[in-house]
């Protein structure tokens, strides 16, 4: 019996130790759902309601089965501009592997002008939409922050230029520390800078934040946009936009939706083919595939659906509560993937035979997701999980362990970055790493 008690204590000690190492030992307690404390905590889906412990939230708004909404028998859902930009993004990513492309050509794709023949797809050429005009362009974060907006757009243009000027000339050169070129990653071949960076990954994963997350969370789901001008009065009276079947508020919400689900085959039931694009949709699917986070894709979709139904029902409190859920969950996706790739990169480097190609690919994806952290949104605040200056600091740390960037990166650096990111979220490095 004594022995049993002792081992019980030992086990208890282990548990406490494992919690401490996550740096949130004591902080865990308030996270438990408390259904009468006036704040949304635990897995509650509203204040003191929803989730596994509390009673269901009384909304008065019925959540429909699918994302389909009609007025006078016709759909009111429209987000063609978002679909167009996601398709433009795919073509730009393709251009990163076309060694005949020039800086001017790829930058023109990024800042497309109506009628210019920048793309293979003629519909895209005819469009008046562009990606760059919506990069770092949300109402909440950038309407009066032209300085950062300019710096961020310069980063994207810089990655395009660097791909053409540094990597294309060395396309048929074997990369080594300090020399751009190609490197094997399993059966794939990666094309990296002298620092080990894959610019197409920086561009791709960076755009997940700067375009899709920023536009959805900090622009279209923001009351500043949803309630702008006479949007509320028009929505209350059912006044649609000229020649359109939707109210402006409905359309704004759908535009957020379009940045997340714009390429899914059936937009009414997008989780049936998660991974339909190379941007946010794909990585919601990836996080959903990690058993630690299974269910997150449905949480995001349910919130989009209920929020849209709330607009129809003119219940703006419910609408905003759903927007908060979406902000939190999508921000988590970015944080989880940033850590995931840092840890995958660490694993690849720590083998007896370091897998540099695999590691650089992972770390380049991680770089892009870290970059995207500055566009996340803490629910209930007007702040990202990490400020631009913090993100810039992380990215500097990632590359400054030696003179050759990722070729010199230390495991301790990757762990330190992972821990710093996880500290501000409700998940652990271990959960995100898998």
């Amino acid at each position: 019996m004594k022995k049993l008690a002792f081992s019980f204590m030992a086990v208890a000690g282990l548990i406490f130790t494992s919690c401490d190492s996550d740096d949130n030992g004591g902080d865990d307690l308030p996270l438990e759902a408390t259904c009468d404390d006036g704040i949304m905590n635990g897995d509650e889906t509203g204040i003191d309601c929803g989730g596994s412990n509390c009673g269901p939230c009384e909304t008065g708004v019925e959540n429909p089965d699918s994302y389909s909404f009609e007025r006078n028998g016709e759909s009111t859902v429209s987000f063609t501009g978002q679909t167009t930009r996601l398709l433009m993004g795919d073509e730009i990513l393709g251009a990163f592997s076309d060694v005949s492309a020039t800086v001017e050509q790829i930058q023109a794709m990024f800042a497309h002008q109506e009628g210019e023949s920048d793309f293979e797809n003629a519909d895209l050429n005819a469009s008046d939409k562009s990606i760059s005009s919506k990069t770092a362009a949300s109402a909440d974060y950038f309407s009066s922050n032209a300085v950062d907006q300019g710096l961020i757009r310069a980063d994207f243009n810089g990655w395009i230029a660097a791909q053409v000027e540094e990597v294309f000339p060395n396309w048929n050169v074997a990369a080594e520390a300090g020399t751009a070129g190609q490197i094997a990653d399993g059966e794939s071949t990666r094309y990296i800078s002298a620092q080990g960076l894959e610019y197409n990954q920086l561009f791709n994963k960076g755009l997940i934040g700067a375009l899709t997350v920023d536009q959805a969370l900090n622009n279209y789901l923001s009351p500043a946009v949803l309630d702008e001008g006479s949007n509320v009065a028009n929505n209350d009276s059912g006044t649609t936009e000229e020649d359109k079947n939707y109210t402006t508020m409905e359309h704004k919400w759908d535009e957020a939706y379009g940045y997340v689900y714009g390429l899914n085959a059936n937009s009414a039931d997008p989780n049936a083919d998660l991974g339909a694009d190379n941007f946010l949709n794909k990585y919601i699917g990836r996080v959903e595939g990690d058993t630690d986070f299974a269910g997150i894709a449905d949480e995001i979709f349910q919130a989009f659906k209920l929020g849209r139904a709330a607009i129809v029902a003119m219940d703006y409190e419910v609408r905003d509560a759903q927007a908060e859920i979406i902000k939190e969950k999508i921000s988590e996706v970015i944080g989880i993937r940033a850590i995931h790739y840092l840890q995958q990169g660490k694993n690849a480097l720590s083998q007896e035979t370091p897998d540099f190609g695999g590691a650089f690919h992972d770390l380049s994806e991680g770089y892009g997701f870290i970059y995207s952290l500055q566009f996340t949104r803490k629910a209930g605040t007007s702040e990202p999980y990490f400020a631009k200056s913090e993100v810039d600091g992380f990215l500097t740390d990632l590359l400054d362990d030696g003179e050759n960037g990722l070729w010199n990166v230390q495991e301790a650096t990757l762990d330190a970055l992972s821990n710093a990111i996880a500290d501000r979220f409700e998940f652990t490095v271990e959960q995100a790493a898998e």
Partner: protein
Amino acid sequence: MKKVWFLVLFAALFVACSSDNGGGDNGSDNVDPAPVSFERGAMLENWADNIIIPSYESFTAELSALKAAFETFKTDSNEANLTALRASWLSAYKTWQHVSLFEIGPAETVGLRLNVNIYPVDAEKIDGFVQSGSYDLTLSSNRDAKGFPALDYLINGLGENDTAIVSKFSTTEKDGLISYIDVVLNDMETLITQVISQWKAGYRDTFVNNDGASSTASVDRFVNDFILYYEKYLRAGKMGIPLGVFSGEVLPRNVEAYYKADVSNELFLEGLAGVQNFFNGNHFQKASSGESLASYLEALNTLKGGEDLAELINGQLNAARTRVEALGSFRSEIENNAPPTNMLKAYDEVQRAVPLLKVDMVSAMNISIDFVDADGD
């Protein structure tokens, strides 16, 4: 009341933390494993000295013979010499199947497997290289234009029949073709020479002396590599991918040795034999054997459903062999049957060994699987 609160709190902590322990929940019962009289070091020695290094040596000799056959063909490009060259190619390719699974240490450093045998081969790329005479086969992006699959194309796929193929070597293309094949053969020789010399120059001792039981110990690492080989390169690469098991549509172009057309089964069976010989610790091309995964399982007295696990694994591998032996060539099975039912049945039989190795065997040995399917991007 206070006590109850403490218990609740404790329970909450337990729940909160348990998910962190996913990989390490065997921590407490791991401290003092049941004493087993099995020496991992002896098994590593047997692997290195009686299986791995002799296989590499045999493969090196096969490559030399292949180069010699090509020299003969070069000086006299006739059909008889082409036939002989092809026989040497097949013989070396079969020996390769006994080497491919040892992708650890020096082989991993040079990326031997994917430098010697990526298929399908990019024939168009080879045509371009032969014509331009300008290529660097050491580049990662050119791995699909060299190794055995490139030779398959160059000695089996350049024409409809042997007369047509031989005639290619008497045209203006001759010099380009000859020097391309030379570069391919030399590249293979350089790689294998590097690998075997590193094994002999020190890696053998590193490998054998790292005889502990942890995720970085030789046994744990190699068992992972071994299972990865079985699952990805033998099961999926040689059968599952061409069968369309993963893509949903058959891909006959992806069979191994596509141009030779009738040897993909043989190559598979060699690979399977390599796997089973390794599992049983059989000395390379000898009747003798030594400590192995099978003898390790026996020492652990591992049973599954009351049956000896090592015997179950051997039984399953035998069943897979019987199924595959009964098939026509993989290419014809896939091209002439829709769906290719018999080959799919054989694939299922091959697959059935995966859980026995990847779940039952590794849990008996307390080895954790560290590979996952790649991201795919």
